[in-house]
């Protein structure tokens, strides 16, 4: 079959879709990856075939201009049912209005959607897999009759908030606006999708937001309760378009417990701020009887006043090669780092300070597999004592091991491919094409 994969142009959001793309390709399916031109290098570096659409979305300018305000609106918002009164109507309305205006309508702007739809009309995909904020994929699928699904590579905070928001809005005003095919007038995301679909004569329905199903790479313990259909899939680490080279020192077993310190890659190449006080982090580690591997970019290294003896500074090392040798990881909270540590069974100290990173870290801590230390609360003593606990209390490693087993119990991308073939055949609107690939569904 023909699978069109799409993600807006940000490595952190695209990387999670690469292993499934490989699996589809290896099973004999045609795969195209559509994004704005800025992602072309990352797509081709992953060995995939790029279809540049639209123009680069100016995400950095938005983050620079209004990012702080958008993030501050989301501070202290939790899906945790033990934190009552969080998802107030005012919060959810602002969340919908701000994210649609500043983010969704920006990374899926008209030229991007138009060119993606034009490509889909010409190439006629059977299935469109879309990164969960790249609603252009849903639009292209609905316009062409392709099956379509969200491809999740981080815990889905969006959908429970969306559902809470719609429940609070209630039905639209009687008569015209609440009708089938029309979004509630106060539903910014629905309104935007309504007029975007309207450009191609297609009515709006909530499926443009939910997809027909989701492929969820997050272990079950991190999935919010949902009635929506989902296909679980094991997260396979992919580091992104950086050299994946195993250095000499990594080929020898460590002589002391090894700890990885990383601030991820996104802050190096975008305007998304990295709030972690990296100099404090290394000071906290100084003198401990451990080997520290700190993967820091040049700008992060420039913030260091002193590099302790037990720290090895490297620019980059493949995390899935490094983490099996580590007893713990201290990181910025990003989704890719978090997921990789999770499937490698390594206890984590996550210094997340952005909305979803906080939520992941809190949940991780609740499950006993790590500790949350928001970056603005980092002190030498606070971080040091937490790291010592992680290394000395076996419960952390045991809990991390349980999550690793949970992750490994999910089917691999290769095993998910036949499921996608079957679901695509069920959901495609138009005449059947030879779907190809393997044909034995083995996961339900």
């Amino acid at each position: 079959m023909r699978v069109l994969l799409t993600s807006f142009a940000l490595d952190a959001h695209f990387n999670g879709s690469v292993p499934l793309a490989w699996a589809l390709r290896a099973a004999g399916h045609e795969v195209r990856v559509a994004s704005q031109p800025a992602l072309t290098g990352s797509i081709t570096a992953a060995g995939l075939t790029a279809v540049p659409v639209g123009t680069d979305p100016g995400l950095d300018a938005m983050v620079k201009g209004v990012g702080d305000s958008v993030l501050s609106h989301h501070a202290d918002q939790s899906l945790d049912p033990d934190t009552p009164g969080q998802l107030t109507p005012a919060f959810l309305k602002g969340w919908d209005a701000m994210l649609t205006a500043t983010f969704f309508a920006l990374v899926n702007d008209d030229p991007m959607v138009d060119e993606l739809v034009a490509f889909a009309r010409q190439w006629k995909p059977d299935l469109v897999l879309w990164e969960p904020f790249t609603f252009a994929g849903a639009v292209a699928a609905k316009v062409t009759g392709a099956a379509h699904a969200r491809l999740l590579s981080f815990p889905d905070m969006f959908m429970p908030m969306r559902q809470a928001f719609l429940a609070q809005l209630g039905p639209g005003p009687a008569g015209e606006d609440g009708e089938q095919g029309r979004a509630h007038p106060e539903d910014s995301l629905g309104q935007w999708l309504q007029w975007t679909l309207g450009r191609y004569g297609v009515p709006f329905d909530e499926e443009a937001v939910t997809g027909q199903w989701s492929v969820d790479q997050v272990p079950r313990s991190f999935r919010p309760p949902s009635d929506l259909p989902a296909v679980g899939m094991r997260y396979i680490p992919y580091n992104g378009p950086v050299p994946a080279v195993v250095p000499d020192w990594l080929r020898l077993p460590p002589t002391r417990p090894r700890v990885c310190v990383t601030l991820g890659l996104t802050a190096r190449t975008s305007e998304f701020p990295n709030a972690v006080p990296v100099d404090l982090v290394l000071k906290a580690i100084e003198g401990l009887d451990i080997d520290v591997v700190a993967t820091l970019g040049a700008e992060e290294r420039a913030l260091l006043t002193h590099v302790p003896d037990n720290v090895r500074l490297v620019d980059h090392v493949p995390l899935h090669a490094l983490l099996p040798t580590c007893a713990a990881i201290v990181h910025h909270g990003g989704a890719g780092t978090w997921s990789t540590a999770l499937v490698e069974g390594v206890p984590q100290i996550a210094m997340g300070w952005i909305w979803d990173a906080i939520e992941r870290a809190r949940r991780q801590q609740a499950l006993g597999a790590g500790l949350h230390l928001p970056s603005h609360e980092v002190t030498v003593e606070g971080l040091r004592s937490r790291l010592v606990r992680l290394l000395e209390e076996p419960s952390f490693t045991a809990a991390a091991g349980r999550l690793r087993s949970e992750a490994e119990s999910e089917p691999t991308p290769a095993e998910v491919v036949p499921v996608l073939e079957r679901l695509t055949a069920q959901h495609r609107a138009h005449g059947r094409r030879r779907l190809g690939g393997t044909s034995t569904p083995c996961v339900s």
Partner: protein
Amino acid sequence: MTHTETDETTTAETTADSPAATEQVQQTDSELGRHLLTARGFHWIYGTGGDPYALTLRAESDDPVALARRIRESETPLWQSATGAWVTGRHATAADVLADPRLSLRHADLPGLQRHVFSDAWSNPKLCHIIPLDRAFLHASGADHERWRRAAEPALGEAAADGRRKSAERVHQETADGLGASFDLMADYSRPVAVEAAAALLGVPDAQRDRFSRACVALGVALDAALCPQPLVVTRRLVEAIEDVRDLVGGLVTARQAEPGDDLLSTVLRAGSPADALAVGVLTAAAGVEITAGLINNAVEALLAHPRQWALLGEDAELAAGAVEETLRYAPPVRLESRIAAEDLTLAGQDVPADAQVVVHVGAANRDPGVFLSPEHFDITRPVGQGHLALSGPHTSLFGAFARLQAETAVRTLRERHPRLAPADGVQRRMRSPVLGGVLRFTLTSST
């Protein structure tokens, strides 16, 4: 779907300050929708830091009176909001701004439609004219307004209003007598009497009354839509209504040219051009009606919330004028007046550059404790002369006498015919209505 916003080919726009007659602007749903969405997003974003003006424009759950107080009690009389606008809620500064001819409803250096495209949106969005309302004459120059005011004076001034008192009383009494035991103040009283009065003023023939009335309902959001993005469907309806009422009034103007009468349009034609008559007629529908209905709503709401004042009015019907003046102070029908600096200015000690937006919060200034004794107290016997600032903009003052007459007649009539009037529940206000605080529903019961 595309929509033609300006397709004018027939009506003469004769003055240099008028919207360019030939300007063609087409916006798809995506273009207009995205613009409204982005502006709305900005109001939310700027509100996250607690900016009381941004929160006022957000018009969500925050109490507008509490926000007005914060705007007034800001450290300096005039301050710059995160939205970029310079804002004042102090009486003295507000009065200066409203009287300053260098502050206008439009940009001095932007001919034609007051349209701002968010080209450099994330760093410098222009939120002063959310949509161009030039076709409804709501973004007109001071010179245009001065000409319209003078030409309309014989029909809209105080003396003319007095002359209409008898016919107003008849309409109000008929409407009041037709009310049931439970009714909606806005839908069953305030709007019908305001529309009827406007239709009579313009001489709208009976056959066109329904059309005029429908257009007035859609136009009711106009003053809000200038500062607060409305949903796409509401905006489309507004723009269609503007074109419809232009067509309707344009037809009336042509008829009056051939056969003058004693209506407002004929009055304006005697001193001005057909374009002037069109402008005044469209403004009557786009601003006059909603201001009038809003003033009636606010007056009744305040009186019923203060039973002692309602009782006083029953003892002395002549207090109706005081009740309306006090409503204009306490709960003005137009809360925000937005202006653009024509040149670099110094206002209240602040340097305000040319082209900057300056906003007067009339509701805040009207409760300035430096000017009004017990400003939070609603008192219909309050001595006149403590100048409140309601309806003192060029487009709002045009209908000051008209709205006052209708509101005085309304409170007098309702007090007389429905002495036991009481709210069935609270007032429901429209969402996204920071300027007008427009009433969606206000159910009242009457047990006469």
